[in-house]
Each structure stands twice: as structure tokens, then as C-alpha cells.
């Protein structure tokens, strides 16, 4: 795992097959995915460990990540396959732990499973 924003987290996985565009498809107040074509449509990302391939769209989307954190509707942590600047800087600003993992680890994570990681000890645990 590669640490982009450090932290220690335990929570339930919400996994997306599709990339996420934070600008425009994530509700800034509620933290709900509002894009009908997205596999997480109408799901709340609040207090989840959000697992998705990578972020897409305008870098202003980083402000959306800051907004959901301010509104207490943000995920506890984000785990991606690939790092992009929108998600990386958005999580850094909002202080949401964020890591990237290998393709194999990514495919082994399932929706609803419990996951914990600690960036200090470089450990991920699945249950």
C-alpha cells in the first residue's frame, strides 16, 4: 500500500466499480451519489471506507471532498487503485486518510466487508 494521507481507520467497505467524479455527482451536503449511471447511485458514502478505482473530472472536485467532510457526510477513508490529484489533494485538505493498493488487493475487497488499516504500521486487515 502507498500512503497519500496518513491515518488509522476501521469501517465497512462501500466499493464502486466505476471511477468517481466528485464534482457534480456527489451531493455536497448529504454525501449521496447522484449520478444515475453510477453503480453507487443513491448510496451514501458517509462513514464508509470508500473503495473505488480512481477519481475523474475537474480538480475543483477536491472542494466537494472538503464540503462533505465539513458537513460530516464524508467517508472515514478512501482506498483507490490509482492516485489522482483531485482525490489526493481533496483528502489531504479534509484530512481523510487515503491509500492506494495493488490490483490484486483491490479485487479482493468486497462490498460490506469490515476493513481496518493503520498507515503508521503499514497494515491492512480484512474481516
Amino acid at each position, binding site marked *: 500500500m502507498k500512503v497519500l494521507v496518513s491515518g488509522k481507520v476501521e469501517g465497512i467497505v462501500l466499493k464502486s466499480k466505476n471511477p468517481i467524479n466528485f464534482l457534480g455527482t456527489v451531493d455536497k451536503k448529504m454525501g449521496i451519489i447522484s449520478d444515475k449511471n453510477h453503480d453507487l447511485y443513491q448510496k451514501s458514502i458517509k462513514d464508509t471506507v470508500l473503495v473505488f478505482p480512481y477519481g475523474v473530472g475537474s480538480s*475543483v472536485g477536491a*472542494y466537494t471532498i472538503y464540503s462533505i467532510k465539513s458537513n460530516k457526510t464524508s467517508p472515514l477513508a478512501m482506498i483507490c487503485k490509482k*492516485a489522482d*490529484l483531485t482525490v489526493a489533494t481533496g483528502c489531504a485538505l479534509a484530512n481523510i486518510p487515503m491509500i492506494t493498493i495493488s490490483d490484486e488487493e483491490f479485487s479482493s475487497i468486497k462490498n460490506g466487508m469490515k476493513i481496518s488499516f493503520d498507515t503508521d504500521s503499514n497494515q491492512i486487515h480484512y474481516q
Partner: protein
Amino acid sequence: MELTKDEESALKGEQGEIMQMAYRILVATGEATDADKLVPIEWAHLSGVNYNTIGDAGEEFLSSISKEARVKVKTTLNPMGFDIDNVSNYGLDENFISKQLSIRNSYETMGVIPSFSCIPYEIFDIPKVGTQVAFAESNAAIHANSFDNLKTNKESAFSALASALIGKSPYSSLRKDDNPNITIQMKVKNPNELTYGMLGFFAGKVGDTSVNISGLGDMDKRQTKAMCGGMGTSGTCAKFIFGEGNSNCEKIDFDEKEMQNVHDELNTAEKGDIITLGSPQLGLDEISELAGKLKGRSFQKRCMVFLPRTVKEQSTKIGYTTELERAGCEILSDCCTCLSPLINKDSVDAVTTNSIKGAFYLKNSNGVGVNLKPLSQIIEDETR
């Protein structure tokens, strides 16, 4: 990424919350781009100024950090949502105006120069060859790397802000190496500024972090800016390198067919209700040329001309402003065609412009149709 002891301590919060946040942003940026260290920069140019784009969260964030945060290097700023001198003519709502003024105030409090311009490379002195800077405005980053011999990655609004507060940026990508794997061969005869804008847009789509371009002759300022504006709009690419590149480079032609494809994507209307010029904003050379072309002629429609305040002041002294206003131009400082709340689909169906960047955002963000034409054609068709 390796950090010095001092940088580690700031990341741990030992130098206050603001520095901790700024270091968190640069470390995340550095890890995302495989940087091995931070390097000093001498100039930051920030995006994230227009209330239209950063919204309430942005306004609140800037207001909160500006209580303590101060920039450490020369820091300049992108355009905002309106020109304070004539904002009352545009019917913007009070909430927009007050939030925008709060954003302006926050940046000024932090020590940022209120330049409100997307062409810092034209209105400020350029530092010596090879100077590391952090430019978040895409056309400015491309111009800095390709024409001004400076070094910057295409920064995000946050990485540029964090760099301004710390005075450093992650040492990665275009800051250290540039070996593009694609060469675009220019194959269009008699190009004008619109052609160069479309070439830039095409290059941004096919290029990775930088592209080689061959077959270009001399370009003037307008064509250069058009190319940078076009490229910044369509991709993540942030540098033109002029020449063929090495023999392994994939070669792609930019010919009449590719140009037509870009034109078809962006040109969505046969004519515009209004005309907008300046995206990126116009510099003094272009204003001089425009004033020359408009001698004895007048626009038959509303024509909005966007330029930085410093350029407007110079233009007024020389007399260009009077000439443009006589010809029916509305002159606006501090703001830009792109993402402007001044142009909206309730009052305008389509806009005529010669800007590829303007065309893209007018279509995608403002939801209006776009009629693309070179400036010479606009003046021929729209003035008498």
C-alpha cells in the same frame, strides 16, 4: 517521498494546523506523482477564485484559513466572477457578489497579489531560465513550460495554494524530465489563431504530460496563447516541445481532417447572439491589434472583451480603450469568458468567439451554443 526534519515536524503539526494541512496536500500530491522530495519555488499562481467554481465550501475554507495563513513566495491569482467597476450592469445576485468579495478578501489577506488574470506570463516579469514555479491555471502552466523556460507541473488549485504557503513543490514529472512519446506533425496550411487553438486541443487529448510538435513556423503571441489555452482545456498535458523528438516517438498528423473533428466537437451554433474575446484574457499586443482592426468600424452586436486590469490601465493611457468602446466593445477586467456568470443561457442562446478554451467552457459549463471563428472573420462578419 523523503522529507527533511523541518518538513516532518510541519507535517506532524508542530508548526500549526495550517502548515500541517499544506504539507499534507504536498505530500499527497508528491506521492500521487512519485516525487522523491520537495523543491523551493519562486512563484505560485492560484486557481480557485471564481465563486462559480469553488462554491460555499471554497469560500468558507478560504475565509477560515486566511485568519492565519500567509503566502511565502510571490503569489498571483486567476480571474474571479466579475469586474467590480461594472458589476451592477449584469444583474448578478447579492449572494454571488458578497461571496465573491469574501473570496477576494481572503486571498488579499493571505498576501496574494490580486492580479485576477489567467495570463500571469504576460503581465509579470519572467524569472530566470529554469526557475521552479507552481502554476495552477492550465494555459499559464503550459505557457511557462513551453515558451518562458520555467518549470511547473499542471498544479491543482490545492497543490498550488499549499506551495504558496510553504514555498515548495513536489519534485516530479515536468519539474525534472520531459521525454514525450508522441510527436504531432502540423499539416494544416495557413493556420490562424483558431487553428493553433484546435492544434492545442488535439495535442491535449493525445499527449500524456508533454508532446513534441513539428512543422510549426513562427507564431505570434495570439497564436501561442491560443495553443496553450486549447491544450489546457482538453487534457493533463502541460508542455510543448518543438521538434521531432527521438526516433521511437509515435508520429501523429494534425491535418485538415483532425482539425475538422475538433471544430465539429466545439462549434455548435451557426451564429452567436453576442461576441466574446479573451480566453485566455487579451494582452496589450492583442488589444493594439484589435483597436487597429476596428478603426472606422463598429460591432453590430454586443461584444465583450476580457483583459487583465493592468492591461486595461495601459490600454486606457494609450487610447485603445476609447477606440474599442467607440466600436461597441464592453471592456471587462478581473474576469474571463470561461465559467463566467455574466454569460448565461437564460439570456443568450449562442456566443461567437475565437477561443477554443472559451468555446469548451461556454458549451459545457454555461450551457450555451458556440460559433467558432477566427478574429479576422468575426470582424468581417460582425462589424460595419
